[in-house]
């Protein structure tokens, strides 16, 4: 990995739907991010501990650990407590926003979304260069 690659922000995405995972990965990589992907909450937590991403993008309804729970555990983690977390949810919960912030997430987006809007939200959440 060269120096230029190394400097690109690393985003961890977790979603149990492969099509959505690949959609987000494709769009983010084209926008210049490095991407690692997990298919469930447990895997997401493991990858986060191993790679220390610059931002974490989590689906809410995932097997093993849901997005809220992964966020809570990240917040209790010594070195991951301040990583920006964006939640994606496909369920119609009136209080999804409240639940997201309660769990410690920085932002929340309802599915379906336009990939460009997601990209904008991620840019906003990443600390400026």
């Amino acid at each position, binding site marked *: 990995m060269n120096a230029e690659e190394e400097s690109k922000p690393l985003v961890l995405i977790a979603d149990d739907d492969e099509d959505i995972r690949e959609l*987000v990965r494709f*769009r983010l990589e084209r926008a210049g991010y490095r991407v690692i992907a997990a298919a469930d909450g447990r895997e997401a937590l493991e990858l986060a501990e191993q790679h220390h991403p610059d931002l974490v993008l989590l689906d809410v309804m995932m097997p093993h650990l849901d997005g809220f729970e992964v966020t809570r555990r990240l917040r209790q983690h010594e070195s991951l407590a301040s990583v920006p977390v964006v939640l994606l949810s*496909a*369920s119609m919960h009136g209080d999804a926003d409240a639940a997201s912030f309660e769990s410690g997430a920085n932002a929340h987006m309802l*599915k379906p979304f336009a*990939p460009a809007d997601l990209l904008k939200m991620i840019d906003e959440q990443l600390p400026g260069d």
Partner: protein
Amino acid sequence: MRRNLALQMLGGAVVLALLSVGVFVITVTAIEDQSDATRQAKTALSQGLGPEDRQQAAEALERADSEGKRAVRWGVAGMILIVLGSVLIVFYLIRGVLIPVKRIEEAASRIADGDLSARVPRLSEATGIDRMGEAFNSMAAAVEKASLGMVEAERGRDEFFSVVSHELRTPLTSIIGYLELLLEDDSLPAEQRTKFLNVINRNARRLLRLVGDLLFVARVEAGRVELDHQAFDLAPVIQGCVETFQIRAASHGLELVEESAPLEGRCVGDEGRIAQAVDNLISNAIKFSPEGGRVTVRLHPDGAKRAAIEVVDTGMGIPEGDQEALFSRFFRGKLVRSASIQGTGLGLGIVKTIVDGHGGEISLESVDGQGSTFTIHLPLVDE
């Protein structure tokens, strides 16, 4: 031992009344005796006082005096008895009526405040009021049960909306997302474009299937499912179902085979719906079988005038605890959910509705971890 409070009270009152009458009779007799003795003394006095008469008068006066004392003693004893009896009756009223009623009142207000588990404590001694407490408790239990049922139904409805929202929005996310990718950039390589279009196509079909399932369930709910009533051969229907899934089975790395025996007789009903039911079973079997597994579909006679359609998979199997709930709507086993297998939990409910509508039955044999066999049994008529 159970005693009737009213009888108890009545008994107490009768005993008290008898005692009062007894005391009254004794007192009145004593007063009469006293008057008698006094009268005798007066007679003796009016007749002049000889030594004998003096003796008589003195005796009569003495008797009158003792009878008077007797009357006073009995009167006082009677009054004490009546007071004691009244105190006893009041004590019984408080213990047997007021306290139990108070407890029922307390339980009722706790229920009114939302504590539906409140009950009247059992009294140490059974009385008539205690039976009222028991009646109250059975009423409270019925109310609690009904209320729990309502909570359960509400939770089911919430879960339904949550699941439906999730199942609608998930494929839409891919459809909209990949379309945007295609629209954003028309310089994408042809191979990539085809790949994206296939994803969109697959997700649109998934959405269509869900909409179809939801509408079917809605029609069942409204009692408006109309089944065709035509005689048809089952063999070509089953063959068609198996063919439809060959590509999907292959893409999952599964072998899908049909092993059928000729039937004597035809099925009467809705060919399209029977195909839908068998499709659902095959689709599940593919979904739940691991790569390298095998799905077998068998059509064969099942005793006289019946056909059996078996769909056998080599999947994870269904734990015994889940088998009963399996055919109810939206049920998804714990394993299924944690293994992240897509689905709404509508499929098997639909299969059962269709099979029931044809006068058939569905059965399941499964060993946890070793695959499942779903069998549809359908009645046949002569050709």
